[in-house]
C-alpha cells in the first residue's frame, strides 16, 4: 500500500474520531453549564481545555457558550473544530478513495458542506440537532468501515488512527477534570459532584456502562479505574492501548518488520497492566495522565516514521 494512502486512512480515522469527541464535549458543556454555580466555575473553559486548545482563551475572562460553539463547531481557523475535522476527513478520504468502500465514502460525502450554512447563533439554536447529526455521520462511517472494509493493512492503519485519537481524548478529559475527581476539592457524594461525574462519563458515552460495572456509586478511584484501566470499556485508555498494540502487531505481521512504535506500545500496555487506581492516585492522576499523553504523542510520531508518512 502507498505510504500516502496509509497516512490518509490513519488521519481520516483520527479526524472522524475527533469530530465525534468534540460533539460529545459540547453536550457535556451544555449539561454542566445548566448546573447551579456553573457561571463561577467557568465550565465552558474546561471543554476547550479538554480539546487541548485552552491556551487560545485568555485567563480571566469568562468563556461563553457562543465562544465555544463558534470555536469548536464552526471555526475553520481551528484545525480541530468539527467542521475542520469533517472537511479534512473527507479530503483524506478523497485522496485514499480507492481504499474506501462506496458506503464509507458516502458516509463522509453526504452533506459534507452542511455546517457552511450555519452562523454561530443558528448553530447554538440547533446545537442538540447538530451534535446528533455529527454523531450519526461518525457512527455511519464507523459502521460502514466495520461491515464493509477489507481487513487488510489499510484497515489496521485506520483503526490505529481511531484508537490513538480516542486514547488522547480520554486522557485529556481526565486531565481537565482531575481536580473534580479528587476528594479534596469537594465533599464526596454532593449533588454537584454527581452531576460533574455523570457529565464526564456521559461525554465518553460511558455512564450506563459505568453503572453496570460499579453499581450506582461514584468515587474518584472507581471512575479513574473505569476510564484508565477497564479493559471492557471501549473508550478506556487501557482498551485503546490494547487495540493499538493489536493493530501494530498485525502491521508488523504484514510487513514482517517491527519498529520503535512496537516497543513503545508494548511499554504502554505493560505500564497500565502493572498499576491500579490506588497506585495512580499515589503517583498523582495529573502526572499519570501527562505521561500517557506524552507516550501517545511519541507513538504517533513513531508510527509516522515507521511507515514513511510524508
Amino acid at each position, binding site marked *: 500500500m502507498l*505510504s*500516502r494512502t496509509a497516512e490518509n486512512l490513519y488521519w481520516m480515522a483520527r479526524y472522524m474520531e475527533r469530530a465525534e469527541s468534540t460533539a460529545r464535549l459540547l453536550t457535556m458543556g451544555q449539561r454542566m453549564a445548566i448546573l447551579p454555580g456553573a457561571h463561577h466555575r467557568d465550565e465552558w473553559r474546561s471543554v476547550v481545555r479538554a480539546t487541548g486548545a485552552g491556551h487560545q482563551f485568555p485567563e480571566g475572562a469568562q468563556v461563553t457558550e457562543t465562544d465555544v460553539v463558534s470555536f469548536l463547531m464552526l471555526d475553520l481557523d481551528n484545525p480541530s473544530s468539527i467542521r475542520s475535522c469533517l472537511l479534512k476527513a473527507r479530503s483524506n478520504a*478523497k485522496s485514499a*478513495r*480507492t481504499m474506501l468502500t462506496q458506503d464509507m465514502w458516502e458516509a463522509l*460525502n453526504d452533506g459534507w458542506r452542511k455546517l457552511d450554512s450555519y452562523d454561530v447563533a443558528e448553530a447554538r439554536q440547533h446545537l442538540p440537532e447538530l451534535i446528533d447529526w455529527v454523531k450519526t455521520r461518525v457512527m455511519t462511517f464507523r459502521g460502514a468501515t466495520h461491515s464493509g472494509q477489507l481487513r487488510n493493512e489499510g484497515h489496521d492503519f485506520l483503526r490505529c488512527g481511531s484508537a490513538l485519537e480516542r486514547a488522547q481524548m480520554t486522557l485529556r478529559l481526565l486531565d481537565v477534570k482531575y481536580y473534580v475527581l479528587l476528594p479534596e476539592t469537594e465533599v464526596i457524594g454532593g449533588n454537584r459532584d454527581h452531576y460533574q461525574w455523570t457529565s464526564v462519563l456521559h461525554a465518553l458515552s460511558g455512564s450506563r456502562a459505568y453503572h453496570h460495572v460499579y453499581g450506582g456509586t461514584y468515587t474518584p478511584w472507581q471512575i479513574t479505574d473505569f476510564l484508565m484501566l477497564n479493559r471492557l470499556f471501549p473508550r478506556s485508555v487501557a482498551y485503546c492501548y490494547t487495540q493499538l498494540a493489536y493493530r501494530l502487531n498485525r*502491521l508488523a505481521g*504484514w510487513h514482517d518488520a517491527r519498529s520503535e512504535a512496537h516497543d513503545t506500545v508494548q511499554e504502554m500496555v505493560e505500564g497500565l497492566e502493572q498499576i491500579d487506581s490506588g497506585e495512580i492516585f499515589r503517583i498523582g492522576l495529573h502526572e499519570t495522565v501527562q505521561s500517557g499523553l506524552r507516550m501517545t504523542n511519541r507513538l504517533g510520531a513513531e508510527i509516522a516514521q515507521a511507515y514513511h508518512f510524508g
Partner: protein
Amino acid sequence: MPFHEMFEPDGSIRPCYAEVQNWVERTGVAGLNRRMDEAEAIFRRIGITFAVYGEGGDPERLIPFDLLPRIFTAQEWRVLDKGIRQRARALNAFLHDVYHRGEIVKAGIMPADIIYQNSAYLAEMVDFTPPGRVYSHIVGIDIVRTGPGSFEVLEDNCRTPSGVSYMLENREIMTRMFPELFAQGIVAPVDDYPAELLKSLKEVAPPACKGDPVVVVLTPGSLNSAYYEHSFLADLMGVELVEPADLFVDEDRVWMKTTLGPKAVDVIYRRIDDEYLDPLAFRPDSLLGVPGIFNVYRKGGVTLASAPGSGIADDKAVYVYVPEMIRFYLGEKPILDNIQTWQCAKPDERAYVLEHLDELVAKEVHGSGGYGMLIGPQSTKDEVAAYAERIRANPVEFIAQPTLDLSTVPTLGPASVVGRHADFRPYCLVGKQIRLVPGGLTRVALTEGSLVVNSSQGGGVKDTWVLQD
C-alpha cells in the same frame, strides 16, 4: 431545421427510438422529472463531481444529467466503429513518423512548420519508439452529426481525453433506475471498458518489466477537476492511484513509495500534462513532476501512457490533415469526414474567414474546453470585430469552421421533450490490439439553440445506447 435524432421531418418516430418513446409516454414528463431529481441525489451522494476553479460557490459540481438516452443503431455503430479505429491507427502512425523520418513532410503533404514549430511538438521524443509503437493509448474523438448518414469529426483528443467515467456512471444510473429498459437486452453493454483499458496498458509494458506488469494511474491530486475520474478508473482496474510525490526514480526504474518500501512500476497511465511530468526534462518550476522519469522512459524502464509529445496529433492546425494521414499511412479512404476548416495562417483562407466571421465558428488552435472560441451567428458585431482583430494580430493561432447544422437529441424539458444540440466522444483504446466499447459520452447543450456542449460551459451529459441487431 437540423436533423433530429428521434423524429423524422414529418413528426413520426425514428424506429430506434420507439422503445424510448413508449417509456416517455408510460412515465410522463412530470414523472421523469421527478426521477431526474432522484438521479441527481444519487450522483451527489456517490460524489461524481468535477471541480470548477475560481468561480466561487460549490467547488465540486455535478454535471447535469439528462435521462433520455442518445441512440445509435447497430448499423450506424458499425460505420462509427470502423471510422474511429481507422483514425486512431492513422494518428499513431503519424506520431511515429513525426518523431522519426518525417515522411509526410518529405512527401509534401504537410508543411513542416505546422509540426516542427508547434508548441506541442517535443524534440525530446525524436528517435525514440515507445513500446509497441503506441503513442496515444486512449484516443477520444469528438464526433457530430449533421444528417441521417453523416457523421463528422470535430476534434481528436490524443493526450488524456476525459469523461469516460461519465459514460460508465450514466449507464450505471440508468440501469439502476430503469431496469425494465434494459431487460430486453437490446442495448450493448459498456462496462468492460476498465478491463479493456487494463489489458491495453499491460500490452505496452516496457522492456524492463518482468512478470505481470504493475500498472498505476497518475493523478495531479485530489484538487484536479477530473480527480473523480482518476480514482474511479484506478478503482475499477484495481490498480494504485498515485500522485507524483508517491513516485521516485532509482537505477533506471520508477518506484512507488509503499508501507513495505519501494515497489517498481511498469506502466503509468498518466493524467498529467507533458510539461509537468518531469522537472528535469521539461518545466524546472514544476512542483508536480517526478524528477528523472523521462530519462527512465527513454531507457525502457517504464511506459508512459500516453506518450509525451502526443499532443502534436490533436492540435487543431494538424487536425486538418488527418484525412490525408489516413490515405498516406494506411492507404485507405477516410471513413469519417473532417469538418471543413479554414486555416487563418493561409492568406486566402484568412481573407475568407475575416470576411465571413459572423457566419463561422472560430477557435484558438491550442484552445480546449470551449474557451476562447467565437460563434459568429450568436455574437454581437463588437465581439466579432474584436475577434477579427485577434486573428489579424496572430493568424497562425486561429482556425474557423462553418456553423454546423448539428443534430438535436431528445432532452427532458420541464413540460415536454425538447431537442438540444449534442456531440459524442467515444474512447478508442490502443495496445497491441485496438479496442472500442460500443458507446461513449454524449454531451448535450442544455440551452435552446446553443452549440456549446462543454461541461465547463454548462453542458450536460446523457447515456449513449448502441442497439444490438
